[in-house]
């Protein structure tokens, strides 16, 4: 059974001047353990697709299942819980709260968990993950003091903290130099080997090449698989 399934998904944005078709009849199945790259030029609809997968935006039409749960008519609270329990997000600009410490940033998904962890358990988990990602020394520092590579590691730590099965990454190396890009991609590979399902969005064929599967998207349509 696929872990995520999209069927005939359409997404249009109604702007004041025009109707933008961002996704056109997208069907996609993601299996457990997949490492998929979604590749396309700027404006091709990659982010829109990721937003719909991650329940950050709503499709205009079509069907979407997470495991065997059909995503339809959910309250904001149910959506937030599904998002919290299923997805870790890693974004191009890191999406960290600058004034929070690294520790507090990593902890955010735990703050919104349905079943709360004790502070002690959360602390141990955060320290373990941070240590594995080489940011164990930085936990007390405010996020804004970190370098780009370190910030993305914090974002990765945060995506892992809640033990979600799926990681959604939107241009995770887009703001990094070559050396850090390689480091981060190495981490992605390891995570996938450990069993995480990863969907990685990029416009960079080189980055995509490390993935097991590549999906090309053009003008909101999947062109080959």
């Amino acid at each position, binding site marked *: 059974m696929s872990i995520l399934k999209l069927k005939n998904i359409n997404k249009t944005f109604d702007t004041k001047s025009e109707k933008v078709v961002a996704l056109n009849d997208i069907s996609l199945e993601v299996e457990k353990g997949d490492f998929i790259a979604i590749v396309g030029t700027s404006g091709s609809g990659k982010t829109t697709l990721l937003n719909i997968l991650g329940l950050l935006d709503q499709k205009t039409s079509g069907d979407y299942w997470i495991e065997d749960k059909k995503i339809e008519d959910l309250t904001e609270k149910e959506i937030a819980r599904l998002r919290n329990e299923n997805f870790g997000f890693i974004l*191009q600009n890191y999406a960290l*709260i600058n004034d929070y410490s690294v520790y507090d940033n990593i902890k955010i998904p735990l703050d919104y968990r349905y079943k709360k962890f004790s502070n002690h358990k959360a602390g141990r988990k955060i320290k373990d993950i941070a240590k594995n990602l080489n940011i164990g020394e930085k936990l007390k520092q405010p996020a804004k003091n970190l370098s780009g590579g370190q910030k993305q590691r914090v974002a990765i730590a945060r995506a892992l903290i809640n033990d979600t099965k799926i990681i959604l990454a939107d241009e995770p190396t887009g703001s990094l130099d070559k050396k850090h890009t390689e480091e981060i991609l190495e981490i992605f590979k390891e995570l996938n080997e450990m069993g995480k399902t990863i969907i990685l969005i990029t416009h960079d064929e080189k980055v995509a090449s490390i993935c097991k599967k590549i999906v090309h998207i053009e003008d909101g349509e999947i062109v080959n698989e």
Partner: protein
Amino acid sequence: MKIFKNIKKNIFIYIFLVAILSVVLIFSSFMYKNISSVNKKNNYINSYFNIPNIYMMMTTYTLADGPYVDKLDKEYDDGGLYTFDAQLFNQADKKGIKNFGVTRQGVYASYSIEIEEVKCNKKFIQTEPQQVYQQDYPNLGIFINDLFGENIKFPIERGRNFKTKDFKEKEYLPIIAGCDYMGSFKIGDALNIKVNKGYMETEEKFVKGKIIGFLEKDTELMTYVGGSEIINANKLVLIGLSNEYKYDAGFFGVFRETLNGVVETKNPLEVEEKIMELARTMGYEGKGNIIKLSYMKDAFNDYVEFNDSSYSSYYKIFGISLVASLVITILSIYLIIRKNKYDYGVLLINGATKNKIRNSILLENLIILLIADVIGIILSLKYIGAISPLVFIGYNLVMMVIVLLTSSLILKNKKTIEFINFNEQNN
């Protein structure tokens, strides 16, 4: 959300908010204090004067009586002198104006009376004398003349107020006693009153009085010999004077504060003009001062009117600051949500709901409100000496509702996608 981190992040907006909220609260205390004292009927006399800066703005010249003015006593009168009262007019001795009124001031400032004998066989016990006018003269009684007695309705616990006919009665002077005497006297009791005129005259006088009523407990009266004083009338007796004692009634002089204004003219028709002219040369016109000439019988209404209009300007300022605080609160919530958009987006992608974010905004503002409350209460107590718990609670509730509505509305109208449009924000 880390509430305090967030408050720190938006510290300038919040400091501004605390400032305006506490100003409104302090203002509310000020309004409460003054309005409640206006409304409390026991205080109505003092209410004319309890906002000094307003009082200072008006110079009222009151003519004592009749179509024009009271003539001075015969002994001083050279046939062309007219006296008048001026609330701010204390500088008659300058500009070469003859200063006849001073003797009267002296007289009424130094009255003391004792009640010598009580008919009906009840002994009158003089307790601690009120020493509010002048340290050296214990005062138990206040003389009230007919004009005053008719114009003012004192708050009466038992019996009745003064009536015109009381002042015509030769045999017994009408007396309204403070409530402390209710145990010792009853209405109709006759008193023998010894009058000491300690300052200018040495002769002792005896007058007879009859109790017609008792004042309500804690009635407060205003006197202003040696500065305005509010006195508690529980231990006082108010004695209505017949015409022959008329000038002695100045003690409790709402209208007869100073008798030192004198103009000289042979033509009574010119008196008003002369007084206004004098006032102008004294420099009382302009600079926000209003000069007004009115007859004594109207002066009372003039004050009420003037103070009412002053209050209405306070209401206006208070209303404006209230509305301003609402607008600023709404604006600051809008600004804070805008400023925190990115952070809220981060929380949303990690499982927060907009409701949770709204709650944290609510909590932040609750803390701000509490800080403003504490500042408001401390400063109100220190500088105003009164707070209105009801107004405080009401204002807090209104502000919480405003915060709730504003934050709900702003968040509701923003889609999740708008918060997490990180690229737009960064580019």
